[in-house]
């Protein structure tokens, strides 16, 4: 890992990614302790104000400070994205590693299942899932997590299969070690870099998905601000206050761009030959 720092110092894309991600996470954390105004402070007399010194990004249709809502929206995106990818990754990696270790019918069954998930129109199924379970941030997380499972399962399976044919793993098998032990000791640590890179990209995809779902009203519920929900409200007022539709979208784009650049950068730095899955 010695050369990593030196190479990272020369990789501009990676650095831009780090800065954007830091801005994203920093905003989300800051919003926990401070926002210019309370996010749910309605002020009907000062609705749809343009940007000013008092309200740097203006106010929305209920007179709430847009900057404050963008800040808390970062928190919503971050939380939904992290938990959804975390969930999908835990299940997907476990299943992928199992398939690689066992092969045979387990492998066949899991690959049919992942074909199944990939064959569904993702947006429609996510809408169906949130309709079945009710619209909420939690159920949006679940819907996004489900589509992350096969992504991680495939990547893990592919990378793990390659590991199982390596000499040091074969040696462990010859010594009679249990498959679970080998997977945990030898396989997973050696494929961690693939998983980290894939997770970064999936995080970006998850933020886009969360924004789409909450744009349709199926994500975090009001008055909790979410970037997609703010866009949905803004579109109604596009004739009176067009700039309302700019800020949340810019926030989404910057967060996703940061993660994408970080992911590509990490791939270049860790292992340029990695093949990533891009879904959605």
């Amino acid at each position, binding site marked *: 890992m010695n050369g990593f720092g030196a190479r990272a110092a020369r990789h501009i894309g990676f650095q831009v990614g780090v800065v954007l991600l830091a801005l994203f996470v920093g905003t989300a954390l800051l919003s926990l302790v401070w926002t210019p105004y309370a996010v749910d402070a309605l002020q009907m007399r000062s609705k749809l104000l343009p940007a000013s010194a008092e309200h740097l990004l203006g106010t929305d249709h209920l007179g709430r400070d847009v900057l404050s809502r963008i800040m808390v929206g970062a928190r919503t995106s971050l939380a939904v994205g992290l938990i959804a990818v975390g969930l999908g990754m835990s299940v997907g990696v476990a299943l992928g590693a199992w398939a690689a270790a066992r092969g045979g019918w387990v492998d066949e069954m899991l690959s049919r299942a992942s074909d199944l998930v990939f064959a569904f129109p993702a947006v429609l199924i996510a809408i169906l899932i949130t309709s079945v379970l009710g619209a909420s941030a939690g159920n949006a997380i679940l819907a996004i997590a489900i589509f992350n499972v096969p992504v991680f399962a495939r990547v893990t399976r592919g990378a793990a299969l390659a590991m199982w044919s390596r000499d040091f793993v074969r040696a462990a098998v010859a010594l009679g070690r249990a498959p679970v032990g080998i997977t945990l000791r030898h396989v997973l640590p050696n494929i961690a870099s693939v998983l980290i890179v894939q997770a970064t990209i999936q995080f970006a995809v998850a933020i886009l998905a969360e924004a789409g779902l909450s744009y349709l009203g199926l994500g975090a519920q009001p008055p909790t601000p979410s970037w997609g929900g703010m866009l949905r409200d803004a579109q109604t007022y596009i004739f009176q206050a067009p700039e309302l539709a700019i800020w949340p*979208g810019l926030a989404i784009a910057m967060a996703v761009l940061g993660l994408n650049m970080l992911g590509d950068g990490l791939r270049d730095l860790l292992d340029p030959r990695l093949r990533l899955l891009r879904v959605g």
Partner: protein
Amino acid sequence: MIEFLSRRLVAALVTLVLATVVVFAVVEVLPGDPALVMLGTDARPDTLAALRAQYGFDQPLSVRYFHWIGGLLRFDLGASHAYGTPVAKLIGDRLAVTLPLAGLALGWALLVAVPLGVFAAWRHGRASDWGVRGFTQIGISIPNFWFGIVLVLIFAVTWQIFPAGGFPGWAQDAPRSLLSLVLPAVALSLSEIAILTRVTRSALLDTLREDYVRTARAKGASEGRVLFGHALRNALIPVTTVAGLIAGFLVAGAVIIESVFRLPGVGQLVYDSINNRDLAVIKNVVILFTILVLAVNLLVDLAYALLDPRPRVTA
């Protein structure tokens, strides 16, 4: 080869059968009573029960599942609960919006992405290559529905060149119908442009490293001849494949864009049907999309098997 393809075909069929079970189950557990939706808040319990019996909602799940599958096998999608009209007609009407939209988006994406990818590969490693790669990075990061809203702001609200949304209908006003598909198609194509540009660029760079290209160069062929005459033709194989995959996605994935631009497409049909609990429409459209995706995947496999002489490694 035959064996490989028949194995893929069987796998796809197994996936399809599983999909029908999953879709049926999900649609059945949708909360909300379709009879109550139809009869509203003044409905009496006895009228609700009578209506449920009329539509067969009171029959056992297995009976209804096989009834549906039987219909599918006879290409009979049944009738919509809400409209009373055949589901096939509803889907047909909406495809008249969604297919041109997807076609426009794909055409536009190819029109922009292929030259851009070639350009980047040609200027490989130079500033303009970096510029193109930066653009593709931004392209896949911008949510397409927000890009749609921004396009509306610029071209519909400020300049008023294009309609901000809605669809007059081909029969009423064909030119303006076409016009109202332009912004959505552009919005929908942004991320596809980014992906196709990347694919074109890297495929071209890959082929430029191949021996026959080196040979052509060594023989003294001009850089233009090498690029367009030899490399591009081969690089178009992966580009076509990805374009095929994208086509499937564009038809099924346009829900949010259709919602931004209020286009009465297939995505909106499903979305509205979910909101109306029009179960017959939901399950049939979702299954048709699934068949579409599986068919595209099979075609891609077939294309690879035919075009790529190297032995196939299953993913």
